[in-house]
């Protein structure tokens, strides 16, 4: 199996939200325009780290997600680079219209960075499990939407967000994430990373599913199947070239995400494939609201493990063979 040189063997790493907290501190030193807002979850989203270092540029606006986005838009309108954070269920969950009217439509320079996204939010249960945030944010025209796989990716995605002029959404996780990248200072918005080379089938993944996809590729490798793995860390704008290349070169796809099928990365990829180069696609995604449980239990129960990804790859290969 040929893995990209940027990849380290999968080892335990920090949560993506921790990398966000660290990136904010670095960015705060570089750029005085950066102002960070949080809606009473700053210890969990890690924006409190920025608050500790730059108390004059940090505001806990209270449990007020709608106001959070309005304030961010106002700051942006007056020249600031506004980072706003909460849990993904609450922002974008609680403030979609604010994101639409005062951020997306005027292309405000607001960065919504939401943590605790996806299924594995500890044992808090369904009200705390964001499985539709990517769909919401994809629907808001003009937002860049990123789903980093690990701490390294999240760190550089945050830097890219600060440099990008316009609305950005970054989806972060609560749980410690498997470390995928050794270094990633070449991170580019919209440029997928081929983390494993292969010609038989392509697994497209983001967030926690990248590590699962690499593991699945290892399983398939044993069976003589060379799976390509693409880290689709940016969902909008989607790396169309990488998707089309994967489709024409491997002829079968799997898309794996810790999100509902509806409106997620899988549907974004499927549209591109349907337009450019039709091929069988299998989807690994959540198909029901969450429940309380430990991360491993939940991923198994919702069919989001490496074994599920490998099984989907076999199905895709099967369909390719039958065409």
């Amino acid at each position, binding site marked *: 199996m040929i893995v990209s040189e940027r990849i380290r063997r999968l080892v335990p790493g920090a949560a993506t939200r921790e990398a966000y907290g660290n990136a904010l501190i670095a960015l705060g030193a570089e750029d005085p325009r950066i102002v960070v807002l*949080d809606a*009473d*979850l*700053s*210890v*969990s989203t890690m924006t*409190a780290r920025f608050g500790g270092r730059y108390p004059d540029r940090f505001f*806990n*606006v*209270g*449990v*007020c997600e*709608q*106001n959070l986005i309005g304030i961010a838009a106002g700051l942006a309108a007056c020249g600031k680079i506004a980072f706003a954070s909460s849990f993904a*269920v*609450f922002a974008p*969950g*609680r403030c979609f219209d604010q994101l639409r009217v005062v951020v997306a439509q005027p292309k405000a320079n607001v960065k919504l960075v939401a943590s605790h996204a996806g299924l594995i939010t*500890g*044992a*808090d*249960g*369904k*009200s*705390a499990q964001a499985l539709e945030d990517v769909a919401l944010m994809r629907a808001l025209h003009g937002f860049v939407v990123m789903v980093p796989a690990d701490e390294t990716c999240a760190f550089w995605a945050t830097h890219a967000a600060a440099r990008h002029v316009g609305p950005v959404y970054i989806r972060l996780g609560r749980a410690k994430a498997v470390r995928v990248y050794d270094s990633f200072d070449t991170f580019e918005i919209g440029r997928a990373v081929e983390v494993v080379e292969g010609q038989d089938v392509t697994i497209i993944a983001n967030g926690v599913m990248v590590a699962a996809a690499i593991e699945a590729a290892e399983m398939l490798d044993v069976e003589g199947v060379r799976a390509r793995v693409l880290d689709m860390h940016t969902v909008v704008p989607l790396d169309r070239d990488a998707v089309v290349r994967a489709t024409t070169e491997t002829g079968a796809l799997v898309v794996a995400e810790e999100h509902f099928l509806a409106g997620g990365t899988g549907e974004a990829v499927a549209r591109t494939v349907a337009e450019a180069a039709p091929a069988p696609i299998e989807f690994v995604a959540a198909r029901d609201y969450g*429940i*309380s*449980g*430990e991360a491993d*239990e*939940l991923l198994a*129960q919702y069919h989001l493990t490496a074994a599920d990804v490998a099984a989907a790859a076999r199905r895709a290969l099967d369909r390719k063979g039958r065409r």
Partner: protein
Amino acid sequence: MRIGRGAPNDQSMENAGGPGIDGAVKSLPEALVRQLEEHAYRLRRDVLEMVTAARSGHPGGSLSSAEIVATLFFHTMRFNPREPKWPGRDRFILSKGHAAPVLYAALARTGHFPVEELARLRKSGSHLQGHPDQTRTPGVEVSTGSLGQGFSVAQGAALAGKLDGAGYRVYVLIGDGEMNEGQIWEAALFAAHHKLDNLTGLVDVNGLQNDTFVADTLITEPIVDKWRAFGWHVLDVDGHDVRALAEALDVATETKGRPTMIVCRTVKGKGVSFMENNPEFHGKAPTPEQLAQALGELELARSRRQAGG
């Protein structure tokens, strides 16, 4: 079937003590006060044991609400645990849904499900989810966990009661941090405008929210004046005084033409020295060693109370 006020194992509450806080409301007999205090003690023990076993959850805001929830479930509300959907039941909505442990303890201790199930809080496949889930737990009226929302649902439930001419009351518990949410104030306007006097709100004013103290986040006082200005009948009580709570709840029932908000002054983490007023224990479980200390403290306070009473 209708269970009288409180739980089946409670004694009847006739006999009137001294004068109530207004003419129509009688003071609670001493024995009932003792019972309610004992229930609150029991709920606190349950909360601590549950959260420790789950290794996650929100002890602080569960402990601050123990007397509020005990008074509602063991004194004020009418319901039938064997028929949790009995249409005539009073509705309780925990809008500050993260305090689920204290609600689950009350539901178990009033016979909605076996007490042993409390040990399954937050476990995979358990019907006791991290936040209240109306699709899974008998006695949970409304799924909450996203602050502000349960309070609005309570308006709808009270409105339905009015439309149907039903006799039930709706009780809704919010947090002082939760009062940050704009939705709370949208609902506050609605309830007063529509004269929802079958609705009693309670706000657990424990002075803390998630990150830190309420006063260091958004200045929220004067809370009483705010609710009054929004057209509510407001009572200001010690939220750890079951007698004051019971009387205020009775006054709310007697109040016509306006919804009542009972402003409950409490201590977050109440009863456990290292949790009291400590932002850390908003959403963190104690260790087994801390649990032992906490239960010891509760026990000591209880024997002191019994000796004193």
